[in-house]
């Protein structure tokens, strides 16, 4: 994902801002890392450059 996405993205649950913690970057893209809600503290993974902002229960159920 591009860092510019941070301007419009928010926590899917409570709509508060997210904080970016990038593990791996490539040419301006964030390849992996974590987005953490500044309010509820829930965190969302970025994998292969794609943030997964499903509510936690929809992300984890198998």
């Amino acid at each position, binding site marked *: *994902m*591009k860092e*510019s*996405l941070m*301007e*419009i*993205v*928010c*926590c*899917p*649950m409570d*709509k508060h801002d997210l904080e970016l913690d990038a593990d791996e970057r490539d040419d*301006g893209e964030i390849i992996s890392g974590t987005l953490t809600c500044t309010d509820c503290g829930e965190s969302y993974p970025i*994998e*292969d*450059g*794609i*943030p*997964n*902002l*499903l*509510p936690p229960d*929809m*992300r984890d*159920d198998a």
Partner: protein
Amino acid sequence: MSVREEFDAWAAEGREQGMEDRHWHTARPILARMPVEDGDTVLDLGTGSGYALRALRERGIGAAYGLDGSPEMARKADGYSEDDAVGFLVGDFDHLPFADGSIDHAFSMEAFYYANDPHHTLEEIRRVLKPGGTFYCAVNYYEENVASHGWQANIEIEMTRWDRSEYRDAFRDAGLHVAEQDNVPDREIEIPPASEFPHEEFDSREAMVERYRTWGTLLTVGVAP
């Protein structure tokens, strides 16, 4: 079966390409109607292969985001786009991960009726749109299109089957103005001569003509106040 499991499986089978090919027949004239301007931020809900955003980018919008509930589908879409201004996210229609008033226009093709709570999805869309932003909602599965009724039997996710007026009412209930409603015909699909029927799921040529040329895709356009 969850949306994620169902559509991860579709992506694994490569079904996003067949959908793009078929849906493009009516998505193209629908996308052409959208009043997008240079620099606009556009959202595609249930993006599949992401073709709608690639097409809109050719008209010069600023940023394009495709949301999909299936991580595998989002990965496929990401693979089809080389464009820095197009991005994909995994997310759910009922829990949009976008700030209030952050989106200029939204589009959705053949995806809205999978929402777990479509009324709430419309409220979420209204929330994320700027004032004057539009939601172009296109569906082939709806009440008047009787040929689509059988589709529910082939999928475990519960699908919403509203008629034209139920779409208008639901948009208004969610606080969206209804600017337009239209049945957009598929003029491109080839319909064989009567002698070749039954063909696909159609018993008669008339039934296939009615499905594609008369009913086609139901478009409802909402506008955020």
